[in-house]
């Protein structure tokens, strides 16, 4: 038993779990903002794929990591504008529109990769930045304070998004529109504009998540995200539409995945259980969602298009 605990609670597993959690966290935070305004975006994964490809391609051509990150954000913004126009102004059904965005992202990123790159090639990956003093702390220093800037940024966004939603006028508008857009609109809050901006924020963060994923790896492959964006959507439910809850969910998912890998690497999980163990993060998430179901309240107007009558 002790060897299992030692394997799980190690610096390597903690660091690995944080790396794995980061794309989920970024995409989940963005989706939280969107869902609090009443907009479900099932296209997160597609946006991530597109932004991941264009970030990768940019770095491949220009060898500039920051330009790559910027491009991933820009792609997220563009996709956000498209999705917002379709769902907010055209009042399209959110689920179907999101799936359309997902399919577009999956197919177009694959197509662009095949036509412009072809065989996988490595680009520069985001370097780890050791934070002075903190990174020298025993045990936790190495695990928590020796990551890329994007990972630090992702975790700093948790309080930032919480502050945005709870303490700002825009955040209050988002929550009001997510609960009852007609009432908010009648009181002078533009439900359309609020949802539009919330969708943009969500997609920009989804784009950043794609950029972070690909530039941590330093290589792109078609279908790179492997459904990561859908897990991020599920983590918003898991986190009860709160940034801190989403962070807990993302960390849980990443740490469980990292722990399972470590237990397998140390041969502590019998080979016959290998594939079953690989499902552990998803099973845990589903179990948590089942437990939470009914105990947390979703935004009342979630998935409901708004039409001004």
């Amino acid at each position, binding site marked *: 038993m002790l060897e299992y605990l030692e394997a799980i609670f190690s610096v390597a597993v903690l660091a690995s779990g944080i790396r794995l959690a980061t794309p989920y966290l970024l995409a989940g935070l963005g989706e939280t903002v969107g869902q609090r305004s009443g907009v479900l975006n099932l296209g997160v994964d597609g946006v991530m794929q597109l932004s991941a490809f264009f970030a990768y391609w940019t770095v491949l051509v220009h060898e500039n990591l920051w330009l790559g990150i910027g491009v991933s954000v820009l792609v997220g913004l563009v996709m956000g504008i498209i999705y917002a126009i379709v769902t907010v102004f055209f*009042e399209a059904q959110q689920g179907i529109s999101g799936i*359309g965005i997902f399919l577009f992202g999956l197919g177009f990123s694959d197509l662009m990769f095949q036509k412009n790159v072809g065989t996988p090639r490595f680009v520069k990956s985001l370097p780890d930045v050791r934070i002075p003093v903190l990174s020298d702390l025993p045990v936790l220093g190495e695990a928590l304070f020796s990551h890329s800037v994007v990972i630090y940024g992702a975790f700093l966004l948790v309080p930032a998004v919480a502050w945005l939603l709870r303490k700002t006028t825009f955040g209050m508008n988002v929550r009001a529109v997510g609960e009852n857009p007609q009432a908010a609109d009648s009181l002078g809050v533009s439900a359309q504009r609020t949802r539009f901006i919330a969708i943009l924020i969500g997609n920009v963060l989804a784009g950043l998540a794609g950029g972070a994923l690909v530039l941590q790896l330093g290589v792109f492959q078609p279908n790179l995200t492997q459904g990561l964006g859908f897990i991020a959507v599920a983590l918003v439910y898991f986190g009860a539409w709160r940034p801190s809850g989403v962070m807990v969910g993302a960390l849980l998912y990443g740490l469980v995945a990292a722990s399972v890998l470590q237990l397998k690497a*140390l041969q502590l999980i019998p080979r016959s259980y290998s594939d079953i163990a690989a*499902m552990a993060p998803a099973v845990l998430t589903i179990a948590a969602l089942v437990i939470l179901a009914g105990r947390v309240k979703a935004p009342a107007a979630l998935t409901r298009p708004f039409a001004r009558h």
Partner: protein
Amino acid sequence: MSKTRTPKLWRLLAAIFALALVAAACGGTDDDPATDTTEAMEDDAETTEAMEDDDAETTEAMEDDDGEAMAGGTISMAIVAPSAKDDLAFTQSMVDSIAALDGDIDLQITDGTFVVEEAAAAIRGYAEAGVEVIVAHGTQYGGSLAEIAPDFPETTFVWGTASDTQGLDNIFAYYPAADEGGYVLGTIAAAISESGNIGIVGPVEAGDAVAYIDGFANGAKDNGATDVSIVYTGSFGDVALAAETAQAHITNGADVLSGSAQMVVGAVGVAAQNGVPWFGTQANQASLAPDLVVASQVYHWEGVLQQVLDARAAGTLGGEVFEINLGNGGLVIEFNDGYPLDPAVKTAAEATIAAVADGSQSTGV
């Protein structure tokens, strides 16, 4: 309160836009048979062009001539595969092999069909379009082939990796004895490892990945490796998970790595960042890390494919199973000149290749 409902025109535009998105997404499945986009073979651009321009006529001609077209003229082939055609792994091995065949071949490719239903649609589409030889390059396509093949008795289906033809006389099956090359590479890995600790990154525990990994592990253990750690990530495509697996191996002391399937690019990246030698399989992976890929086991399916074409020309449309191995040249160990491998180790490896090929050395799988 003023009424400002969105006009119906805008709703129509929204619907058209959504359809456009989905249509654009379909572009990701390269060379959809429905659109008759033909994949250009490097050395056969003119033939491909002709097929693009005049596809219906070409198909008609094939139907009329049948056997004659195969014997002397152009033969139409298609590949349906689960990953990208240039994945430096499973799918690329088949694409490269067809490119290496002699003769005029019109090749069409549908790649990235992880979803079996999509693959089934592509296979049926090619068969309906009159393609003569359809390669279903994925074990998971077997169930679909069992349904489709009887509907097209004049079409030859080539299915792998698989060791049976499902009792159908228009299916050829093929599989690699991947454990053979795995064993050889394992012996080299043990020879260059200083710690005796070797890490392997696997996908799902199935198919030729298992054979390769078990052969590799046995080769390493038989030659002094003390700790060979195998991790199946549970995914053929999760690059991030493969990268973290490689990192876990290195953290646990592994100083040599290997792995199978298309997601290993993530693991190769981590190996390269840490200066850890890598062994590849399925395709030559030296381009991923020119200084660190020691050698790759490369699948050469052209021998199998040539036998298939010869059999079809002779009137046999299926019903046989082919194996590629070190002995028949279907499996080739390609050393990377960019890695400074000790000549003595290379000589020993070549002796092992010969021993495995002639059966005097068992892989233990």
